[in-house]
Every structure is written in structure tokens, then in C-alpha cells.
């Protein structure tokens, strides 16, 4: 089996994700650094983003109901 290799690490303190996922995060107004990453090499996946967004709206919902 291949050794696990680090995917190319974006420099400049950016969290790790494939370019289109980074764009999606931006469109969704999400800071990648806050998202729990489950992808290969510790990268954030689309699913991670959607899970994060869902959790965020759940948190926001009761507050809005007050």
C-alpha cells in the first residue's frame, strides 16, 4: 500500500480543501478554518461544509425563535 502522502498544502495559513470546495465555502460564507475536516490528508470536503452549515442553522434557529 502506498505511504500516506500529504496533499499539496496551501500556504498562507489557508485551510486545506480542493479549489472548488474553497470557492463553495466562500459562497456559503464559511471560514474553512472553522470546519472539521474529514477528507484525505485532513482536507475539508463538501460534505464537511454542508454539515457545518446545517449545524450552524440549527444553532441559529432557536435563537431566531426567541
Amino acid at each position, binding site marked *: 500500500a502506498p505511504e500516506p502522502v500529504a496533499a*499539496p498544502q*496551501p*500556504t*498562507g495559513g*489557508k485551510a486545506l480543501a480542493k*479549489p*472548488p470546495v*474553497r*470557492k463553495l465555502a*466562500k*459562497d456559503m460564507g464559511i471560514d474553512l478554518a472553522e470546519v472539521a475536516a474529514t477528507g484525505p490528508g485532513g482536507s475539508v470536503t463538501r460534505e464537511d461544509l454542508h454539515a457545518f452549515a446545517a449545524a450552524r442553522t440549527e444553532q441559529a434557529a432557536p435563537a431566531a425563535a426567541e
Partner: protein
Amino acid sequence: MANDASTVFDVVILGGGSGGYAAALRASQLGLDVALIEKDKVGGTCLHNGCIPTKALLHAGEIADQARESAQFGINATFEGVDIAGVHKYKDGVISGLYKGLQGLIALRKITYVAGAGRLTSPTTVEVNGERYEGRHIILATGSVPKSLPGLEIDGDRVITSDHALVLDRIPKSAVVLGGGVIGVEFASAWKSFGVDVTIVEALPHLVPVEDENSSKLLERAFRKRGIKFELGSRFSGVEYTQDGIRVSLENGKQVEAELLLVAVGRGPVSQGLGYEEAGVAMDRGYILVDEYMQTSVPTISAVGDLVPTLQLAHVGFAEGILVAERLAGLRPVPIDYDGVPRVTYCHPEVASVGITEEKAKELYGADKVVTLKYNLGGNGKSKILKTQGEIKLVQVRDGAVVGVHMVGDRMGEQVGEAQLIYNWEALPSEVAQLVHAHPTQNEALGEAHLALAGKPLHAHD
């Protein structure tokens, strides 16, 4: 007093150009009831008097140039001249094929197509031929027309605009092109290929002055080689008729004589006398002001395309039209990043870019934070095969994403798609560099540029 059309539409769209028809197609696709009002031909400027016919002329010019230069490639062919009637036939064939296709698309989707000139009569109604069309929402998409300068009269014969130039039934011996922007340099290029003696007059210091200065300089060098003359930083002061042509005078005292003058100093919005102001739509110098969702100051009215003060490009019209349609259908579209819209000037050689210029990057990020790289097409096999020259220039935020891609060279306009993904997805040079590009393509040059910017040049010096 107008008759009421029986239904209330979800959207009434005024103008069937790139912006209007894209909105109509997308809205109807999303289940909205759409009326599309067009006084002339659906497809608008782009299809009938803009993008498409100019590119057909430019391609005919390419064919002419290649016939002239065929011996360089070992092909014996004799160039005998341009058959302008044949060029128009070819051009019109392209237009009519696409026009038929577009009409077919409109017919297939549930769109009420209204032929006639419309006028906004309230925030929710447009009147056409004495009939009133009511919509829960109105989209204004009446586009633009050529502008001139104060005191410079277009006669349609010796002093013309792009509209006339596209149907000109002869090849002039010589021409002055006033304006070195996209439209001006495209006509200059096509005409030169047709054998016209061309001089461009541009008030700003460069051709295609909104491009990165490097691209402008490369284009100027290429045009100079082609024998296209230009007067940069030269303001027009007047034009007189001569025996069989015109004489253009510049503020610097120079004069240029030619058979005709093409005025390509920009296009202005079609917004006068259409009831926009009366409905309370906020405007600025004829342009309709919109927010990032293309909504005007009147909540039931949106505007798209050349009518609003964003980039005057067909695909910007498409994007804006789609965005409004999606918003009205209750989707949550993402605002357009205009810097991320690809720009192509289809002259020979082509100029293409996406993202921001080096100058703007330095303003935004500070001069010390901006890194640039130039890759010369001289190292690119396919470009050598095509015998084209040029460069790719990348602008990067130090240790960060590529924020500008600027390209010059024949066919380089086709590279703008990959550049568009790189810019909009904020890719790092190393992420592009990791993917070795196809050999031998021009596309490879984009890969090489990113290899070099990532610190690992392959077919380039360190």
C-alpha cells in the same frame, strides 16, 4: 389608452439581447411565466451586430492571412483577394444558423414572445403596440448603441460605427479607427487582414487600455509588425471630408487621411424616452443603477446587460440575466465577481485575461505582496508551430492564490477557461503546477507558467 393583455406574467422582460433572452430562458426553465419583448431580432447586438459577425470577419481575415503566408508552411497557395460579398454570405450564414437555433429555444420554452418596441409605463407594466403587459416583475434589458464624440457626426458612409462597418459592401483602401479598445482593435485587425491600410487613434497611452500594461505592449508590438499604425495618447480634434475620403485631425497637430473613419469610442445605454426615469428608476449618466443582485431602486424592476454599468460583454449579460431569473424564482444565486469574468479580444494576436492587473493587485495588496511571472510563448511548441508569439503573465499574491492571468497570442483566448477556474477557485500556483498539461498544446504554456510561478520551471529558465 392601452389594452390589457389578459394575464399577469411573473416576469416581463424588455429587450431580447444577451441579457434579456438569458433571463427569459432561465426564468421559464424555473417555471416562471415570461413575456419577452423585442423590437428587432432576438439575440440583440451580440448575435446580429456584435460578437458573432465581428468574429466571422476576423476568421475570414485569418484565412486570408494564412493563404498569404502559406509558403512558410510548405503549402503552395495564392491569395487573390477578399470577396466581400462572399465574406458577408459566410458571416450571415453563421448568424442565421445561430438565430434559428435561438428562436427554436425560445419557442420550446414557455415564453410569450412579443415583437415590438416597448415602453415602461409603471413599475409593473410595459406597453407595446398599444397593448399593456403586466408583470409581477420587470427586467430591463434594452442594451446599448454606439456612442460618438461631441461634434463628431456619424454619416453612415465615410464616418461610420461598428453597425455600418459590419455591413460595408466594399474593402476600403484605408481607414482610421477612432478608439483602441476591444471593438476598435478587432476591426483594425480584421481590416488589416483584408488589406486595408489602418491607423488607430487612441486618447489613452495604450491599445486595449483596460488590460494589464504588459498585454497592451505586446499587442502594440504585434500590430506594429503587422503594419497596423497607431497614434497613442492622441486626442481627436476633428474630421473633414476630402475629395474621396476623410481627414482626421488630432490635438497634437497630426493629421491622418483615409477613405473612412470608424468611430469606436464606446457604447452608451439605451435608456432614454423609455419611461425608466418616470417609473423612478435611479440612473447615472443613462446607466441604470443596480445592486449586486441586479435590482434597481424600484423593487419590482431589475436591469441587466449593457444597460447597467458593469462590463459590456455578452456573457456578462448572460450571467446577469440568469442571476435575476434565479432570484425571482426564489433561488439564492451568488453575486457575480466581475473580476472573475473572462475577457477576450479576438484580434490577431488575441488578448485574453481574467482576474486583476498587476497594477490593481498592487493597489489592493501592496506592491511588496504582489508576485508576477511571464512565460514567453517562444518556449511553447504549439505556438511555434502556429508561428505565433506572445506571453502569459501571472499575477499572484505572495504565497497565495493567482489573482490575474493575462495572455497574448493567436488562439490564446481559448485558454481563458482554465484561467477562469484558477482565478475563481483561488488556486495556488502549486496546485496547477502539479497537473502536467498536455503536450504539445498552447494550453501547456499555462501549465508551464504555473510550474515556473510555483518555483519549478520545466521548459523555462529559473
